[in-house]
């Protein structure tokens, strides 16, 4: 029995060696082995989107709607810091009712900065609040947001909990849900039944970004040329200070980001009041987040 096992072992060893030899030895006619490989060698390069690395984008969602008289305020506000080298990003949401100093306008809800001075004042407000330099801003409204989502064929959003909100029209079961523009808008607007109301809504809006990022990444892997289509339609439905060249560079950087390496959070805050107005106060804990993001755009830990 032992001899049989030894013989079997020798046979297997011989076959293994022969197998390895078949794969690695040079053809008989060759004098020296050549480093040919069956492995595909890949290389890629994307230019840095900004002179600074990492770079930051402030995404502003306006409450403008056709045929209505809106506030002209920022309904959603997210500071997105991207570190292309580490292929990661952070989405930091600000509740729209955050009570903050607005340069030249005293203190007020952060969303009023859009009405008071346009996107440039929103940028100045967030820069002053966080100490983080903002490279670009992007501004959209309900209609633009909805059309952009439709334009890319919808997105899959990981709904965190069941929603049934007649005000926004958000009716979703928890789990991944494919949403077209109208559904994504309802999901992003819903603040009834979300934890902390406006705070939970801000976090859910970050989930929409993540869904779009996943879609972009998947499309880009399938065909990098699809990025051009995203940029074309994005440029139609969004107001931005990015040129098409900037958009392309940012898009190339975004397409390489792994959604699993994106942190989505809302500034630490608490509900309070100023006079009779219900507002949100950003707590001191936010300072450490700002400091962390100033370092490399990513949160440690």
């Amino acid at each position, binding site marked *: 029995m032992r001899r049989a096992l030894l013989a079997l072992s020798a046979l297997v060893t011989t076959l293994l060696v022969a197998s390895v030899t078949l794969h690695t030895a040079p053809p008989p006619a060759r004098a020296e082995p050549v480093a040919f490989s*069956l492995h595909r060698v*890949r290389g890629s390069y994307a230019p840095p989107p900004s002179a600074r690395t990492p770079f930051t984008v402030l995404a502003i969602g306006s409450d403008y709607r056709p045929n209505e008289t809106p506030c002209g305020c920022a309904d959603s506000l997210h500071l997105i810091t991207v570190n292309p080298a580490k292929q990661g990003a952070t989405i930091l949401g600000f509740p729209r009712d955050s009570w903050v100093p607005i340069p030249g306008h005293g203190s007020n809800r952060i969303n009023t900065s859009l009405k008071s001075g346009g996107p440039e004042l929103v940028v100045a407000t967030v820069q002053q609040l966080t100490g983080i330099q903002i490279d670009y801003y992007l501004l959209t409204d309900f209609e633009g947001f909805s059309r952009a989502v439709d334009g890319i064929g919808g997105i899959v959003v990981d709904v965190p909990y069941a929603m049934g909100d007649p005000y926004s029209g958000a009716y979703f079961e928890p789990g991944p849900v494919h949403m077209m523009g109208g559904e994504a808008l309802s999901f992003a607007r819903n603040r009834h039944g979300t934890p902390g109301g406006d705070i939970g809504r801000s976090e859910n809006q970050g989930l929409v970004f993540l869904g779009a990022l996943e879609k972009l990444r998947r499309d880009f892997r399938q065909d990098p040329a699809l990025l051009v289509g995203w940029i074309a339609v994005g440029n139609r439905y969004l107001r931005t200070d990015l040129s098409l060249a900037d958009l392309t560079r940012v898009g190339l950087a975004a397409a390489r980001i792994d959604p699993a390496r994106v942190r989505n959070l809302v500034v630490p805050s608490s509900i309070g009041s100023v006079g009779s107005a219900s507002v949100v106060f950003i707590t001191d804990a936010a300072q450490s987040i700002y400091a962390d993001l100033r370092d490399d755009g990513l949160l440690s830990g």
Partner: protein
Amino acid sequence: MLVLATLGGAVWFTLAREGGAEPGPVSPTTVGGDHPVEFELRTGRVSVRSVAAEVSREGIDAATEGVHATVQALYMGAFVDPARWDGGAFPDAFQGFEKGAAERARRDLDALTLGSVAGELEWVEPSTGRYSIVFLLDGQNRPVTAVAGVVFRGIGHLKDGETVSISNGADLFLRPVDGAWRVFSYTASTQIAPSSTAGQEETPQ
């Protein structure tokens, strides 16, 4: 809505020159010394995505010729013309690249060119060389970015008489700079294998 912004959507305006069999606009180039090779990448589908509400294809033919010139020069220098390999240094393969992309490309020779195998090759016999282009047009329908998806395949003839199969694919992002289309970003891969194993599956990465 950054990602959505960056990212926009997809109303495609395909001004297509369908198929992949059209000859490129430049005359075929012959290289190769003892093994003359006539090689010209073939221009396949050319489509556009425009920021403008109304799309015009005026200027697309000229832009296509510009992209073709850059891509053709890359593949001549990187794969087809032995006189330009310089033992695997490929000194002029990236003349159509912007500075940052060219610097990085020098570290990606195995993905963008024949790489170190060039030193052992006598000549390359192309079997497939084609590409498609997608142009991004600005609000005035001027082409500002192009993405060229290239497929190149051929047989490499080693100095000792053996052969290897060569397979390359690349997506090249180009933009017009001073009248020429320059590569500013790329994703590329190259597989070189003994011809006897050419049919085997590559290792997924």
